[in-house]
């Protein structure tokens, strides 16, 4: 019987089930959390924070990201300014190796332990794999930082190659719950995404797998994304709030409201008690400074600092000062090794 059917308060249920026993919320329960009123938001965030502190501790993992190959992607993810199928003003460009090393140095200078190299592709070709091989080696020779990658769908051989290069974590998002996915992407399937995620997990690389919210999905579909992510048991879930990009099919959607965004953070934490939950894109627009703090006190335990792939972020000094004030130490590099 469900919490709702028995009239039990969902936050009481979550406290007993997730906080005390470490059992993630089910789909139905995540829906109930996402439907709680604004006057419960403070209690909800406090509970999600307790869960995060108990199962993940106070540390915050800090990461920088960079686009190795920008724009001109053949896929049609409706939120993405890098798709070559839309009339976005983003032009195609490759980063060279010295620039890639410089990006890693800028990231390391913030105290970050993670640097993720991203390419706007369906999957890597020979040229991209060669660039990765050279780039990862150059970064490892010059900068003390863990290297992660996000290069689209992989073959088994490419998974093995990346692991051999020393890429320790691979990002491949589900983007949306299975039932909403066809409204978001038509050039590849949800199952193709799952295949890459599973291969990455089996290889021993850490899987980073998240998605976006605020793309017009229903509450049920948003909850579906949370539980389908939980089923994959990723090491990390990056949570993006849609930043509507001019020229894309989702370009005219309104950014998500901050209460909704915070409720979503807490609900994802309660569905994923033992997973790193990262603020990824869109937080500046959706949450602003105050909301950034509320999210860090509501389930988030990782951030991206500095600029994003095609847009700009906050000054990392502001984020780091906030972490300091909240007494949340930056996860040290050696703890991630």
């Amino acid at each position, binding site marked *: 019987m469900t919490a709702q059917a028995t009239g039990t308060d969902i936050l009481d249920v979550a406290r007993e089930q997730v906080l005390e026993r470490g059992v993630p919320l089910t789909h139905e329960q995540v829906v109930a959390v996402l439907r709680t009123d604004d006057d419960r938001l403070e209690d909800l965030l406090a509970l999600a924070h307790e869960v995060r502190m108990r199962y993940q501790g106070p540390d915050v993992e800090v990461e920088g990201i960079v686009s190795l190959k920008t724009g001109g992607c053949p896929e049609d993810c409706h939120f993405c300014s890098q798709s070559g199928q839309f009339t976005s003003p983003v*032009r195609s460009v490759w980063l060279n190796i010295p620039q890639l090393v410089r990006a890693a140095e800028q990231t390391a200078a*913030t105290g970050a332990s993670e640097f993720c190299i991203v390419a706007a592709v369906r999957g890597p070709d020979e040229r991209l794999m060669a660039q990765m091989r050279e780039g990862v080696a150059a970064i490892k020779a010059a900068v003390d930082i863990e290297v992660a990658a996000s290069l689209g769908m992989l073959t088994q051989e490419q998974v093995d190659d990346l692991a051999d290069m020393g890429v320790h974590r691979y990002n491949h998002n589900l983007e949306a719950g299975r039932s909403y996915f066809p409204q978001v992407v038509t050039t590849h399937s949800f199952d193709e995404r799952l295949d890459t995620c599973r291969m990455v997990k089996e290889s021993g690389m850490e899987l980073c797998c998240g998605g976006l919210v605020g793309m017009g999905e229903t509450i049920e579909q948003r909850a579906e994304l949370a539980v389908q992510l939980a089923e994959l048991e990723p090491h990390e879930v990056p949570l993006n709030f849609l930043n509507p990009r001019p020229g894309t099919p989702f370009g005219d959607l309104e950014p998500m409201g901050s209460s909704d965004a915070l409720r979503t953070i807490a609900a994802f934490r309660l569905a994923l008690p033992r997973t790193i939950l990262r603020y990824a894109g869109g937080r500046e*627009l959706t949450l602003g400074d105050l909301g950034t703090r509320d999210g860090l006190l509501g389930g988030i335990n990782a951030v991206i600092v500095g*600029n994003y792939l095609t847009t*700009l972020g906050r*000054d990392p000094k502001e984020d780091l000062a906030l972490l300091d004030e909240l007494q949340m130490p930056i996860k040290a590099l050696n703890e991630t090794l």
Partner: protein
Amino acid sequence: MDAPTPAGPVARPGEPAPWCGQCGEDLTEADHARCVRAAPLEPPRYCAHCRRRMVVQVIPGTWTATCSRHGSVEQPTWG
């Protein structure tokens, strides 16, 4: 840094820069309120001098915008 303007970088300060770096429209005609709001979180995409779409590279601490005619501008995004 100065208050954000939608014009984006002026690669050649002496030359006229009539185009909005954010949306590529004429600065004296269209409404650029959204562009002004967007500017702190968006690098410019259009050359302010000639309206060409620029090649823009964003890395964690800087962005570089290059117009094939008017050259490159690099700006740090934190001090």
